[in-house]
């Protein structure tokens, strides 16, 4: 019988790891991979909590199913965006793309 | 009908009876699954030695030649000879290939195909390796690992051909997974459970799904689509574009030599057997020999439930499909990539959806639940 703390500790660690991955990586693909990791850690926590209270109701499992579905949608859209960004900017290293901000000093 | 069939189903696997004394009465679930898979896995692997021989013999006959003859009586030992040769051959890895990816491709594909045997039942009297509640889902899950593994393999072998081959095989597999799933959903909905044993027991009572007229022969349509997409899944001749010899040598498998190639060939044939076994379980009535449903009292009941009879029917059916696969391989020409994808996305998908809807709306079992 695996104590639930272990599960939660693992999911916490994974979540933080995913976050660390998102922060440190410069390549958009790797950021997406880290985001997937964060999502999976959340899933793990859901399943763990569901298991903790005995398998009477399965809210946790349903939640994780939903998270998996949403993650799939998010991955599809993310990758589509990356492709179009790549097509436009020629690269998807996040640090070099700062179209959000005016290149030159905007004269307010 | 549907309810009572599921609860009496989780028959005890034979392993439990053997190991109970060891584990003080209740052997843990994973132990049963492990032993069952090993036992029946070996049986299937032995078949893998015979199946290619049968296939090559039939193909030869169809193409007017005699096939392997020299090695052993009628060339029976030809396949073990090949295996031995490959095992001894030098295992090369292309320069610049990604070590981990290269190994991973082989590892993932072979492990998943072997793991796929777990839920396949061979009979009712405990001949069950592992009785998973998610049976068919487990197999599809395991099968879905295959395309990424192929792509990783293709990429890892650091050559343009294998890379493009990997892409093509992934595209093809994804294209045909969905029609397969859809056609299976119909059967699952009728039997009311994922486990293959449940499906087979259901067919034992009601007759083989492929022949069920109550579903307006939708079983036939879904069966056909399932069969064709499973052939596409195994990337055999009509659909073997990824490894089209002329253009891409062996597709993602080109750079694998020696035991890796042997494993890959084994995986290919394993996929063929598993797919045909799935088709048998879902549509051909699994291990019960009689196509039409028999009730408790009929004379054939004893015959149908005899474990040996069930085991033999299962093997005979497997070899029947191996023969069909060989027949397909020799008769049909290769499809173009766009034809292949169109067939998958534009024809199989809508037809299977339509048939599914008709079957669900018509199926007598579901009607009782609704009413």
């Amino acid at each position, binding site marked *: 019988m695996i104590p639930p703390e272990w599960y939660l500790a693992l999911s916490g660690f994974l979540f933080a790891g995913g976050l660390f991955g998102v922060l440190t990586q410069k390549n958009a*693909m790797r950021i997406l991979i880290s985001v997937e990791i964060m999502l999976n850690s959340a899933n*793990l926590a859901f399943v763990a909590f569901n*298991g903790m209270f005995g398998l009477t109701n399965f809210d946790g499992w349903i939640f994780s199913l939903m998270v998996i579905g949403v993650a799939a949608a998010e991955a599809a859209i993310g990758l589509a965006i990356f492709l179009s960004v*790549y097509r436009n900017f020629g690269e998807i290293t996040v640090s070099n793309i700062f179209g959000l901000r005016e290149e030159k000093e905007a004269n307010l | 009908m549907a309810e009572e069939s599921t609860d009496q189903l989780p028959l005890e696997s034979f392993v439990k009876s053997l190991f109970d004394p060891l584990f003080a009465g209740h052997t843990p679930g994973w132990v049963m699954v492990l032993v069952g898979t090993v036992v029946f896995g070996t049986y299937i692997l032995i078949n893998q030695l015979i199946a290619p021989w049968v296939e090559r013999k039939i193909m030869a006959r169809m193409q007017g030649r005699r096939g392997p003859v020299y090695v052993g009586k009628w060339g029976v030992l030809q396949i073990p000879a090949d295996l031995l040769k490959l095992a001894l051959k030098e295992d090369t890895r292309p320069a610049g290939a990604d070590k981990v990816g290269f190994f991973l491709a082989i590892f993932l594909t072979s492990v998943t195909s072997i793991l796929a045997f777990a839920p396949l039942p061979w009979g009712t009297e405990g001949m069950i390796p592992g009785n998973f509640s998610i049976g068919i889902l*487990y197999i599809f899950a395991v099968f879905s690992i295959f395309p990424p593994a192929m792509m990783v393999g293709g990429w890892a072998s650091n050559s343009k051909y294998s890379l493009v081959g990997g892409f093509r095989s992934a595209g093809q597999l994804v294209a045909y997974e969905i029609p397969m799933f859809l056609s299976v959903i119909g059967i699952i909905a009728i039997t009311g459970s994922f486990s293959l044993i449940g499906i087979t027991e259901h067919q034992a009572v009601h007759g083989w799904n492929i022949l069920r007229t109550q579903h307006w022969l939708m079983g036939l349509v879904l069966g056909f689509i399932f069969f064709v997409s499973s052939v596409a899944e195994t990337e055999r001749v009509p659909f073997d574009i990824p490894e089209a010899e002329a253009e891409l040598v062996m597709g993602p498998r080109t750079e694998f030599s020696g035991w890796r190639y042997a494993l890959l060939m084994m995986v290919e044939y394993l996929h063929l057997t598993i797919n045909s076994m799935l088709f048998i379980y879902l549509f051909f009535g699994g291990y019960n020999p009689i196509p039409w449903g028999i009730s408790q009292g009929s004379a054939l009941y004893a015959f149908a439930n005899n474990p040996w009879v069930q085991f033999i029917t299962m093997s005979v059916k497997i070899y029947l499909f191996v023969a069909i696969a060989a027949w397909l391989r020799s008769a049909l020409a290769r499809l173009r990539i766009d034809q292949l994808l169109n067939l998958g996305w534009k024809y199989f998908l809508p037809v299977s959806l339509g048939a599914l809807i008709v079957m669900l709306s018509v199926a007598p079992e579901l009607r009782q639940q609704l009413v």
Partner: protein
Amino acid sequence: MVDFIQIVFILVSLFVLFAMYMTWTVPKTMQAAYWLIMFLVGIAVLFLLANSEIIFAFQISIYGGGISVLLLFAALLAQHDDYTFVGDSLSGKIIAIIPQLIAYALVAFNLILLPVLALTSDEYAGNITTSVLGDSGLTVDQAFKNTADFSAQLWSTYAPIIPFLAMLLLTALLGSVKLVIREWELEELSDLMRDRYKGTDREVIA
């Protein structure tokens, strides 16, 4: 006493953590992708340990099958100059990582400490005894019941959510296809990409 399942759990979680570490440090993005696949399979096994066969099946088929293929495709299509992990020299790496590390420490510490403290506190201790995590003694029909109950509950209390999920996936599908199919005009592209098309026939068209 240390149970066999617990050992399995520890091993799998170590493998999972190793896979995560590899996704950061491995040079090529494709390698990061397949390490992610390994990570996902590991997580699926963890689900199995938590006695949820159906979630194991979903995880493997959706994540392992669907999303990983997506990631692999994208990783190959969007060429990019791979580089080693953050910063060039070791010292450069450490300095660059410090803010990330701080954030990492803050979040990790809290996320790990919080549940552990909560679960071990007397308030919850009482009713966790029924936990099935890693309970290998679970009989087969128990597994069947779980799957049946899960799907029953999914389709009764949570039935309204499913169409939304379906709609979300549909829009994601259509949206991503639309985004990717769109043929960008030369003027829209950045200079870098435009000179990539310098010699090609597209430039003549434009």
